[in-house]
């Protein structure tokens, strides 16, 4: 078989090969998309990036609910009767070709007037004429070219957050004032404004007060707008009897402002307005750096992000009607189409259910259910249409009830005291005592200087550099981790991660891959001819297990089978010459399933009787043993699995000795397990992947979701780790510990600057020019130090 790559999506074409226009395609879908593009003069798509496309999925009736006006009205952003605007989330956007094609939608359909892509957020904003084109048409058009939008219950509830830009405004104000004040301070810096008698420039001396009052005006918005948050935070901290780092900062800003105003009002000196504005600017810069977000990832997902907006209900007359999913009540008869999500717990009443629970458990292999059996919310139907009767409403389902737990309401960050604040307390106390002692000393020796010294100490000791160390180090680490495919929600998570002492892992989907790609054969050996028939039979099947087995079997020549039949949900039947073969479940091939029920197998029988079976095993992620071995040196480890004990022995062989393994854990027992560990004073890291881990992830100190496709799926968590980087997990934890060490080193460095400054302040010699040099110098050197050091850590991560 030749190794041809699909011209559209780049997948290998060995299962099916379609030649068209001298190009090869892996499926009819890819060919169709190519045709659409080439007939509309959009072939440039392939020039920007080769094999950029993704295989489209054609799903009939999936978007019928978009005909319901009540539903579409909530999704559409703007509607004036003729023109509609909508913002759609398209997880598939991944390269510049995608931007190009999506912004050229108007060539594919003239009713689209404008489309604009936001690449980092993976959204597209489309303006279209409503008259001949509906939202459903638009969504189908997008789905047909391989860019299926993701519309979930979350969009429906539509709490569109306005982007918060206040920090940028504040940074702008502070930066603007800082620059201008420095410019106006030049005469002071070069001592040109000192009195004419002492050799100063006469004219500058004459206009000195104008320069000074202008500086005062510039500093007003800085203190009362840009720096206002520090006063609020300090006030809140004091009221809660906490001395956080904002207390000395607010005190510093206030004293700087008051003393400077006093100095210029009474012609004592030029004030410290440059230091004041610079200080606020640098502080806000640190905050800005810390605020980095991965806007294309969502860390706060709950079940609403996965559930469909609407569902087809069959009314008493057996007619289909589309209703919002919240309106489903107990006893409703629901129609679930192929590839649709099951929104509520219920009982199957018609059809052959093949349910993929990978969203819930991480297990990718579909579960077969027959009429009368219970099916649970969160699964995805893979095999044709089924009908079910709801036994609960959406909010009462087994899975969604988890979100009623209090852990989902508490914000982890508020209960956690970060490293800067814990330093802040001691710092404030020592600064205040130094200030009072120095003032007391000067009151005896030279009372005229006492007030000057008191304010000078508070000004110079302002912990600007300390406040900068943590945001710049952690902000930069966040960026470095992001490059290495470890996406962290915020900088506090890095601090938390550096402190963990216990790591708990989910099994399926977390330490195993979702592709089952190892299998061994048990039974009578197959003849060469039988093997050839076997491989040719499963070639045409789309069942995930058949695909895995197909990839594992030896290559065989393509032969034409005499007969081929697929029995949905059971297996395959084929014949060639005088051999007929049955491949599938134990019942289907006529073998009593007496063996252990714990493993997944494909059974094979021929007309000569039962032959044997292929037993599939979970494939553990590469390097799993090494990761666990390394981690066990400094951390307590445990496995918490929702599955049965089928894999216990294999796991024990792979993992370090005496690693505790817990099986058959339910979502809420996982949560309780973490909680009990925390009650023992442990700092727990939870690594999971499915919705059933959501509670444990929320309860743990740091919850990391492992995801094979970061754009599509991850439960609520603190960090998302790309599955390909699983081996790096421990080195990431170590890197976060190193980052904390860097912050501590920066603290020492900044204390050094403070000591030098305090010398000038206590001795009563603090000139504005010394403050103007020392304060920015300490800030900038901290920023440089942390940036260089974190980049060094990043380079070592490889």
């Amino acid at each position: 078989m030749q190794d041809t790559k699909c011209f559209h999506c780049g997948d290998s074409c060995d299962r099916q090969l379609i030649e068209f226009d001298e190009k090869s395609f892996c499926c009819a879908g890819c060919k169709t998309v190519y045709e659409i593009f080439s007939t509309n003069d959009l072939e440039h798509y392939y020039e920007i990036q080769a094999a950029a496309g993704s295989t489209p999925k054609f799903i009939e009736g999936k978007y019928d609910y978009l005909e319901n006006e009540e539903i579409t009205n909530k999704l559409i952003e703007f509607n004036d009767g003729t023109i509609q605007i909508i913002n759609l989330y398209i997880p598939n956007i991944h390269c510049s070709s995608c931007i190009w094609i999506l912004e050229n939608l108007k060539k594919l359909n003239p009713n689209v007037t404008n489309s604009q892509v936001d690449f980092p957020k993976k959204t597209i904003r489309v303006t279209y004429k409503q008259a001949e084109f509906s939202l459903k048409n638009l969504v189908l058009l997008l789905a047909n070219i391989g860019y299926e939008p993701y519309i979930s219950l979350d969009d429906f509830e539509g709490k569109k957050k306005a982007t918060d830009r206040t920090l940028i405004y504040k940074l702008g104000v502070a930066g603007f004032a800082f620059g201008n004040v420095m410019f106006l301070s030049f005469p002071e810096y070069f001592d040109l404004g000192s009195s004419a008698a002492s050799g100063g420039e006469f004219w500058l001396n004459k206009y000195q007060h104008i320069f000074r009052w202008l500086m005062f005006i510039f500093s007003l918005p800085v203190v009362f707008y840009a720096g206002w948050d520090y006063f609020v935070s300090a006030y809140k901290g004091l009221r809660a009897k906490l001395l956080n780092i904002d207390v000395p900062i607010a005190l510093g800003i206030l004293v700087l402002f008051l003393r400077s105003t006093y100095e210029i009002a009474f012609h004592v000196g030029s004030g410290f307005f440059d230091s004041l504005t610079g200080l606020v600017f640098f502080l806000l810069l640190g905050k800005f750096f810390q605020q980095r977000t991965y806007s294309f990832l969502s860390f706060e997902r709950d079940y609403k992000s996965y559930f469909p907006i609407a569902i087809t209900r069959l009314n008493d007359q057996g007619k289909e009607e589309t209703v919002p999913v919240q309106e489903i009540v107990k006893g409703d008869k629901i129609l679930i189409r192929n590839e649709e999500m099951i929104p509520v717990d219920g009982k199957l009443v018609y059809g052959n259910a093949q349910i993929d629970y990978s969203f819930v458990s991480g297990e990718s292999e579909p579960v077969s259910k027959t009429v009368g059996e219970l099916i649970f919310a969160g699964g995805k139907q893979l095999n044709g249409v089924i009908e079910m009767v709801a036994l609960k409403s959406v909010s009462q389902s087994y899975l969604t009830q988890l979100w009623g737990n209090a852990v989902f309401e508490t914000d982890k960050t508020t209960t956690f005291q970060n490293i800067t604040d814990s330093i802040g307390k001691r710092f404030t106390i020592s600064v205040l005592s130094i200030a009072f002692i120095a003032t007391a000393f000067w009151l005896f020796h030279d009372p005229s200087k006492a007030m000057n010294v008191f304010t000078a100490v508070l000004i110079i000791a302002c912990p600007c550099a300390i406040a900068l160390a943590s945001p710049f180090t952690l902000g930069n680490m966040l960026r470095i981790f992001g490059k290495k495919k470890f996406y962290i929600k915020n900088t506090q998570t890095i601090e938390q991660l550096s402190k963990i002492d216990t790591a708990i892992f989910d099994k399926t989907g977390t330490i195993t891959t979702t592709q089952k790609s190892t299998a061994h054969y048990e039974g009578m050996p197959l003849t060469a001819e039988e093997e050839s028939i076997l491989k040719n039979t499963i070639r045409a099947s789309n069942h995930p297990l058949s695909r895995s087995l197909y990839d594992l079997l030896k290559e065989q020549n393509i032969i034409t089978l005499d007969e081929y039949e697929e029995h949905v949900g059971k297996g395959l039947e084929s014949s060639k010459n005088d051999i007929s073969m049955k491949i599938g479940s134990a019942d289907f091939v006529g073998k009593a399933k007496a063996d252990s029920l714990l493993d997944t197998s494909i059974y094979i029988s021929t007309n000569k009787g039962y032959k044997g079976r292929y037993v599939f095993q979970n494939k553990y992620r590469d390097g799993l043993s090494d990761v666990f071995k390394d981690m066990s040196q400094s951390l307590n480890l445990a496995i918490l699995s929702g599955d049965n004990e089928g894999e216990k022995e294999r796991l024990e062989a792979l993992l370090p000795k005496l690693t505790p393994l817990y099986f058959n854990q339910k979502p809420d027992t996982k949560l309780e397990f973490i909680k009990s560990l925390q009650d023992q004073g442990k700092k727990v890291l939870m690594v999971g992947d499915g919705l059933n881990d959501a509670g444990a992830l929320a309860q743990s100190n740091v919850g990391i979701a492992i995801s094979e496709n970061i754009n599509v799926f991850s439960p609520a968590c603190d960090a998302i780790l790309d599955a390909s980087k699983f081996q790096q997990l421990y080195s990431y934890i170590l890197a976060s510990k190193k980052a904390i060490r860097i912050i501590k080193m920066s603290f020492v460095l900044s204390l050094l600057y403070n000591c030098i400054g305090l010398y000038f302040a206590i001795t009563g010699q603090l000139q504005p020019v010394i403050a103007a040099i020392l304060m920015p110098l300490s800030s900038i050197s901290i920023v440089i130090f942390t940036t260089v050091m974190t980049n060094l850590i990043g380079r070592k991560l490889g």
Partner: protein
Amino acid sequence: MSVIYVLLAISILVAVIFFIAFIVSVKSGQYDDSYTPSVRMLFEDELVKTPKTSAKEFTKKKIQLNKQV
């Protein structure tokens, strides 16, 4: 020497104009997506070219059709 008032006024005015321009541009959402425009910019040339060439081909085909008739 009161020209210094004029100079100061002008320099601060210019600074304020830039500052207002900054605020307006942030408010309009220009900084919300800093990646896509940089890619979009590179597409422009091809965007203009493709319809032109296709129009030519289209007319060519028409002429051929006429000949056959």
